[in-house]
């Protein structure tokens, strides 16, 4: 029986409740705007106005330069001769909103970072200094502080103590409360020498005593790395984010190319109109007004996405953390969205991991119930899950529990006999076991194996089930069918993965015949039977050669090569150190189906970026209709017909556009932080849906928004 199954079993045991006080629990959900995050973020937003910080975000840097130039223009106008027909208060209002645009952008980034920091803070609380009982070379125990531990040190941890650092159990078995890092209250079993030997610092030993070899130095534990990641200290921009930043810079350049020539073009119109109207005094329009052209530029360049891009990335990382996944880089999270193939272990992931009796098949004179009764008797003292499931199945068929006579003797399973059973005091012997073992038993007892046993056995085996033959003295009574049953809901999960465009592959040690049956039943697309580290690796390489991205979930040391080869490798925190080193993500919950969530988080990250970029560009259309007529109101007043929003005045049109442009940033912060919802609809339907919401919506919304702002400005008598 696998260790995985043992863990399942232990977790389900109702008797195993914790008596110890609850260690600090992590904050799992956070309101968008809390006092703890919002106030520092506001402060930070102003601190981030420093040009050397803005420089890293070309779009917002352009806005800041524009705001600064407008400021200079205002100072010049205040102390020099006014050059424009427009009042100075218009320029001041313009400049205030330009600065606010930068501040809002900073606020979005700062808020995302503050939320990360708050989460890190709650993690840090569980990382507090603890006592460690270090085992010296001469096996003496030394009581030291956990901060003094170095990789390679061995520590003893017994029930009621906190594990002082990340490590691997080298001897012993213990039940551990990992709620401090996973938020999951059910205790888990960790055992030396198994695939579940990894322990994390800050978790709590509930029972037994273990010796742990520490694998990480102080400041380098998982918790430390998590804290580092969320605080953005080692947050590197992912390739997609860099690519998008580049593209946004190029778009900014394009709009610079559009706006700069507007000045001479507007001047041309002014010159002509002077002649047309026959006036001598210079005719000025907003088209030759530098602050207004700056406002136009700021409205056109993709400020919305430029402002929120960093926040989206940080929030994606944070969402992964909230799902208890530690990604080693933002790239890994993002790449999860691109996954084409998912490799999953059969045992413990797709199936429950232990076999259950599902039916009794009689032979000869026996009835199904007789077989059941014999099987139950043979299993009465069998403590293995298989044995218990036989008894349970017999009772669930409406039979009264079997009783065994006082002096009957239980024959336990052994690797030699491959049978177990019971000997009654009256000499009656009942056995259940592997078909060939039982056949030998029958022949030894002088009986005869009926001819129709073979097809029955083969039939069960071909369906992926395990046949156990039941015999009574020299006679074959029938067969028990044991099946490793699927976890509930797996079929739906695979269907969901398929809808997301992922192919699922089951890895199993079973023979191909059995594997194909289980694969068909579970609804996976493919399987690797009789899996070895080599053929797993080979399979991944083959898929990658076809251009596919492969995700793999693993826990054992023998998974390490395949994990290293896979594009997205998710190791279970309970897994061995080798597996965790080879993976680029670690799942603290050690939940094998977590890959689905990982993929969804990756997809959501990309969708959010795409949606806000599309929205940002689509917004520009309406702004043009507000600004172009306003620019030329002084020279080509009939262009007013283009102003389909019918705005109050040229200055109110431009102010409304720039205010809308600024306000949309904080308005979209929740979307950036929560992410645009991902629905597995298939790419075409998803694209259609998002194009309608963010593309078409992005075109329409600003028409409404700008008009509303204009109405409010006029209503408040803020404009002449």
């Amino acid at each position, binding site marked *: 029986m696998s260790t995985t199954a043992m863990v399942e079993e232990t977790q389900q045991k109702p008797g195993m409740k914790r008596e110890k006080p609850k260690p600090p629990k992590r904050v799992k959900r956070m309101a968008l705007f809390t006092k703890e995050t919002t106030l520092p973020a506001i402060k930070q937003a102003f601190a981030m106005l420093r040009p050397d910080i803005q420089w890293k975000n070309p779009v917002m840097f352009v806005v800041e330069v524009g705001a600064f130039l407008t400021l200079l223009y205002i100072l010049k106008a205040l102390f020099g001769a006014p050059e424009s027909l427009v009042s100075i208060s218009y320029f001041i209002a313009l400049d205030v909103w330009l600065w606010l645009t930068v501040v809002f952008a900073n606020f979005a980034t700062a808020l995302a970072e503050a939320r990360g920091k708050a989460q890190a803070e709650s993690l840090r609380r569980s990382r507090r200094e603890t006592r460690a009982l270090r085992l010296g070379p001469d096996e003496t125990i030394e009581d030291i502080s956990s901060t003094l531990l170095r990789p390679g040190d061995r520590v003893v941890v017994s029930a009621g103590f906190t594990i002082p650092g990340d490590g691997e159990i080298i001897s012993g078995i213990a039940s551990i409360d990992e709620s401090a890092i996973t938020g999951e209250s059910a205790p888990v079993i960790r055992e030396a020498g198994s695939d579940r030997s990894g322990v994390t610092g800050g978790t709590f030993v509930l029972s037994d005593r273990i010796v742990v070899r520490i694998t990480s130095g102080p400041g380098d534990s998982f918790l430390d790395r998590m804290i580092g990641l969320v605080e953005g200290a080692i947050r590197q921009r992912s390739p997609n984010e860099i690519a998008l930043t580049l593209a946004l810079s190029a778009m900014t350049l394009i709009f610079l190319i559009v706006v700069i020539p507007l000045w001479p073009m507007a001047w041309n119109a002014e010159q002509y109109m002077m002649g047309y109207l026959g006036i001598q005094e210079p005719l*000025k329009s907003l088209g030759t007004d530098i602050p207004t052209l700056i406002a136009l530029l700021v409205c056109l360049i993709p400020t919305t996405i430029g402002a929120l891009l960093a926040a989206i990335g940080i929030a994606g990382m944070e969402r992964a953390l909230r799902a208890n996944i530690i990604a080693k880089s933002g790239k890994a999270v993002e790449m999860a969205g691109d996954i084409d193939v998912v490799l999953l272990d059969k045992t413990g992931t797709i199936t429950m991991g232990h076999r259950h009796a599902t039916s009794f098949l009689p032979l000869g004179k026996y009835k199904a119930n007789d077989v059941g009764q014999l099987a139950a008797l043979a299993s009465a003292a069998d403590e293995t899950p298989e044995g218990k499931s036989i008894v349970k199945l017999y009772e669930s068929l409406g039979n009264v529990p079997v009783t065994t006579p006082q002096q009957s003797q239980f024959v336990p399973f052994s690797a030699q006999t491959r049978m177990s059973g019971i000997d009654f005091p009256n000499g009656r012997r009942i056995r259940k076991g592997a078909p060939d073992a039982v056949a030998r038993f029958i022949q030894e007892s002088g009986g005869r194996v009926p001819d129709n046993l073979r097809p029955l056995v083969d039939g069960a085996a071909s369906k992926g089930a395990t046949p156990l033959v039941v015999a009574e003295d020299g006679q074959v009574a029938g067969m028990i069918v044991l099946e490793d049953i699927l976890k509930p809901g797996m079929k739906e999960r695979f269907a969901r993965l398929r809808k997301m465009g992922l192919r699922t592959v089951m890895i199993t040690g079973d023979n191909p015949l059995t594997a194909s049956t289980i694969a068909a039943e579970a609804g996976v697309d493919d399987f690797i039977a009789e899996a070895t580290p080599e053929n797993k690796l080979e399979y991944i390489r083959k898929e990658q050669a076809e251009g596919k991205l492969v995700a793999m979930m693993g826990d054992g040391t023998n998974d390490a090569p395949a994990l290293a080869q896979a594009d997205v490798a998710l190791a279970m925190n309970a897994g061995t150190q080798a597996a965790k080193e080879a993976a680029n993500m670690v799942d603290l919950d050690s939940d094998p189906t977590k890959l689905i969530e990982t993929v969804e988080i990756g997809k959501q990250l990309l969708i959010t970026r795409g949606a806000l970029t599309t929205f940002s560009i689509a917004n520009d259309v309406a702004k043009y209709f507000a600004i172009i007529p306003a620019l030329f109101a002084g020279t080509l007043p009939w262009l007013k017909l283009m102003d389909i929003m019918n705005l109050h005045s040229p200055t109110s049109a431009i102010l409304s556009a720039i205010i809308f442009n600024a306000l949309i940033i904080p308005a979209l912060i929740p979307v950036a932080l929560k992410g645009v919802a991902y629905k597995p609809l*298939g790419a075409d339907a998803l*694209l259609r849906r998002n194009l309608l919401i963010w*593309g078409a919506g992005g075109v329409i919304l600003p028409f409404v928004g700008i008009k509303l702002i204009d109405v409010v400005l006029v209503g408040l008598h803020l404009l002449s």
Partner: protein
Amino acid sequence: MDIWLLPVAILATTTVLAFPLSRYLSLIMDGKYLAPRMLRWFEERLNSGPQDWKQYVGSMLLFNTVLFLFGFAVLALQPWMPLNGDAKGMLAPSTIFHSVVSFMTNTDLQHYSGDQHLSNFSQIFFGLSNFFLSASIGFCGLVAIIRAFRSDAHLGNFFVDMWRVVVYMFLPISFVLGVAFLQQGSPMTFESSVQVSTLEHGVMGTTNKGDAKQQSIVVGPLAAFVPMKQLGTNGGGFYGMNSAHPFENPTALTNFLSCVAMMLFPFGLVLMFGRMLKRLRHSYVIFTVMMTLMIATVIWAVYYDTLKPNPGLTAHGPAQTFEVPSATAPGGRRTVTLPSVAPMPVDQHLGNLEGKEMRFGTSAGATFAALTVDVTDGAVNAEHDSLNPIAALSPMVGMWLNCIFGGKGVGMINMLLYIIIGIFVAGMMVGRTPEYLGKKIGGREAKLALIALLVHPLMILFPTGIFAATDWGIKAESNPGAHGFSQIAYQFSSASANNGSAFDGLGVTYGFANNPAPAPEAVPWDLAAALVIIVSRFLPIIAPIAMAAYLGAKKSAPYGVGTLRDDTVTFGFLLLGTVVIIGALLFLPVAALGPIAEHLGPIPFGG
């Protein structure tokens, strides 16, 4: 209803012909077409071996350099060359530079008048040779891009591609078309001009003796010249008046054939793209998007020009008043009152007939105007300057978008840029790193696409701005104000789109080098337009080839449920939206200052 018959017939015929043509094109470009042995011998001599993208681009630039030097020599030596019956002199150096650049890049923007300034030798060895050769360059560029997308081992050989395009495709088709033009009445002669007695006595004046002067009519090898002018989407006219001239476009049938001819290859190339990539459905989507835009430009032009009267001749009343800000006027505002205008006594039920050739039908001028810019042909059969102001927006939009089928190869390449940008931005909304043809689009590819895309607005808006604010532009325009602005913007749009059609009305002709009274601003126009043409020609071909090469080098991911499909209706809308929104964002201000201001403004305003 008959107004719509011509455009529908043109579009339908060309679409039907494009299908078999595309099959033939992909066979030829993949080297599956077995040419006659003699031609193959030449092809093998030209083959300088497989090329990577840098070598391919290098060969292309080398070839263009040779083309430039040859063209410059032909025009500069015109007075000493044969077939110059009218003893034409040498063009001004700046005009030669502009013309050579213009013809070598398939632009064919003409700052000269062919019938007045070029000998038959120049028409053949400068004009006609460039028609064949320049037309094949964009074609080769597209084929190189396709091979890069397919991740072929190499991009083929530029010289071989060139040979295949010119000899196996252009020559036979233009021969067939030439016979049709000959039959319809186009001259085919090496004579420079014929002397005829005018029907009305003395209409050309009289000699000292009182005899009526004869009219001298320029002729030449037109039946050979015109087919390739159209097939290669060149558009450079033999005559100054281009396809409005009765010898260059004798009948309604040749007008129809001209339209079909110029659209044939641009249509076929889109389908060839799909065939060579084995993604025919994808190219159907692109084709449909392009066709939608083309139909829109045709409808716009025909509706506003053929179904609406010339606003300059209609009544304008009652008087309109506008307010403009003013520093001196009381209240800071000055009121502009525009008086009502009485109509001119002109029958306008056939729409705006100014500058139209009625031989072709009423909607032929507007239809031709829309089509010739969509496919960057640039030939004209009507005066674009005389289109109704708002109708003139149609040809301008065609040039600004530059991907409504576009020139051979380059139009499709431009559309690829929009596809890459569209996928890069909106494609993320399916939750995967954006990918095209299974290749992930990274920062480098998006950057190259955006650079190639920004050349066009840069080369239109900056020169337009500079010329609009200086004497270079103001003194060259025939009408001041919005219309003159349109003239300037149109000229640079035509140059940057490598289109070559002219709005006219700009004084840009220097003429012969010894011309005593050239247009005052002809030299700056020659130089500026030539520079715009060069930059807008080569960067938008080279950058996409590089982009395709980088994309092609990436691993190709198979299509799945989660991948963005490029052959669906949704994708079509994504592409249409990308083109329309980017186009509007780049050029709406120019449109507002030019055609829209003129349309909405009062009459008389800006001429």
